[in-house]
């Protein structure tokens, strides 16, 4: 009898289903990217940006073109603005740097750094690409007050043997955004 009771207890079950329904909504992104002031220099010769829609994944991808001068050091101090779109503080950082496309076998991009120029204060405020490979792929967080914009700049050293008017490489640089409560 004990075995039978044990078997009955094994198969007996009470389940209670709580019905829920989930609305899937949307909201504005925590930050909005704007072209920096340097896009006005020579009509965007040194930096310009746009975005496109990837229909296969549904992603909105921001595309930024930065242009160096072979043999010279180029500092672009206001390439991109990243503005807090929320009414709460938002922490941002550059979280990842990857080389996606290299159009030439020669190493022409000798140095490239993307810096958080403003707000200042981050101990590590830049990501670094050395000889086309990313060697520092993340920055520290900076906090943006509601409505405040971070300014990102770019430093470039292109090998003097690089061809003119060509695209040398493409990097994926992710910006991580963390809204604060």
């Amino acid at each position, binding site marked *: 009898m004990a075995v039978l009771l044990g078997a009955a207890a094994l198969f007996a079950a009470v389940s209670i289903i709580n019905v829920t329904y989930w609305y899937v909504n949307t909201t504005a992104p925590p930050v909005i990217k704007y072209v920096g002031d340097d896009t006005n220099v020579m009509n965007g010769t040194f930096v310009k940006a746009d975005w496109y829609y*990837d229909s296969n994944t549904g992603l909105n991808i921001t595309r930024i073109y930065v242009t160096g001068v072979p043999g010279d050091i180029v500092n672009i101090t206001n390439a991109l603005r990243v503005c807090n779109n929320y009414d709460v503080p938002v922490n941002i950082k550059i979280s990842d740097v990857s080389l996606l496309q290299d159009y030439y076998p020669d190493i022409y991009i000798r140095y490239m750094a993307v810096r958080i120029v403003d707000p200042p204060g981050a101990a590590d405020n830049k990501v670094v690409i050395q000889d086309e490979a990313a060697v520092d792929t993340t920055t520290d967080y900076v906090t943006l007050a509601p409505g405040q914009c971070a300014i990102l700049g770019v430093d470039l050293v292109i090998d003097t043997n690089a061809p003119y008017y060509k695209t040398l490489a*493409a990097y994926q640089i992710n910006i991580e955004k963390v809204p604060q409560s």
Partner: protein
Amino acid sequence: MQREQVIRTLLFFLPTLVFIIALTAPGGDYAFRTGPLAEVAAGQLPYYVYVSNKTLHLYSSPYAPWPYPKALEIKLFYPTTVSVSSTCGAVAASSVGGDPGSYPVDVVVPPGFQGDCWVNFTHPSGWRDAVLLRVRLVDWYPGATERAVVTLNGSGWQFVQVGQDGTMYIWERPMARIPVAGCVFVYNKSVLLTETQRYREVAPNLIPPAVAPSSSGSVRYGAFIKLEGVSQLYIYKADCPTTPRLNISRPPPLRAEIGVILPTPTGPVFDAPVVDNTVIYTTGLRAINYTEASARIYRLYVYTYNTPVGLWGAVLRFNFALTALLTVKISLFRPGGELQRGGDVWIYRVGNATYWIYGPQPYRLCEPPCGVPAGWQEPLYVVVDPTGQWGGWPKIVAVRRESLQPWRS
């Protein structure tokens, strides 16, 4: 002998004689019964047999003997055996009987027979009885009560499968739902060789499910047909006919560029799959190679299969992780050559072989970069035609259900 002795002798001897006869007779005390030796009547018959008195209206088939198990029943009232014979070879037993009681008699109508056929029951005592079988030849697989009639339009060899849930697959691609699922395929007046293969879900709770050949799971029945225009395929719910073992070579390796280009700090890498495990399944008609492979950001479930008709096929299913990566190349399957679009399929031509693919775009270069796919991708169904005779997946023009009715009522 005095009269008294005669009477005493008769009173003693005659009952003793009767008693001895009753003990020693083959039928025991049945030797003193009167009445018929046996009765013959219709037995257990399917609904499509019409019975009138001792006349049975049966069907015969051109494909195989049509069995009517226990179609007749003989009720013996004596412990004896009765000879059984038929004028058309419909009864296998030559005699039936034993102790008194009911005995079923199986009837099997030979293939292609049509007309009247007598089943005769005889006994040495002179007793006899007979049942008339009126048989009509019908284009129907014996024993089945219903069939699915599928009208197809296409060309070349087609590999048709039917799942137990009624899903019809052509070259592994689900194409239709049919009302009758079974293992007997009749096409162009012939019963086809069939295979039985089980499929299981490779990941639980997916909609639609991701399935792959397995040694367990739900059964699909498969057969090959050669289409030339519009024709009809009949599928019967019946046991599989015996299939001789064909000599089928192992499935060819899947030589193709498979993977995506991923960015890394030091440069782009091609994320190609690495095989984790492989299992070979051999059916009556095909050899199937099922492989699971993994890469950095996806897992690939793929099976290839060889066939005896010169074509081979594959099914690929990708499960990508959700990532924030961009890519410039997504190659789900690229054996070489230029990718072309032909109707709802993708086509590669590599040498003499044509690769037909149904599913998501198998190869894409992204300029500008695009996002890496996320989650389970729709399956890619691949058919490789080195013969140049295949015309693509056929169109299913119509599906209907037919059931067998008595030919006289």
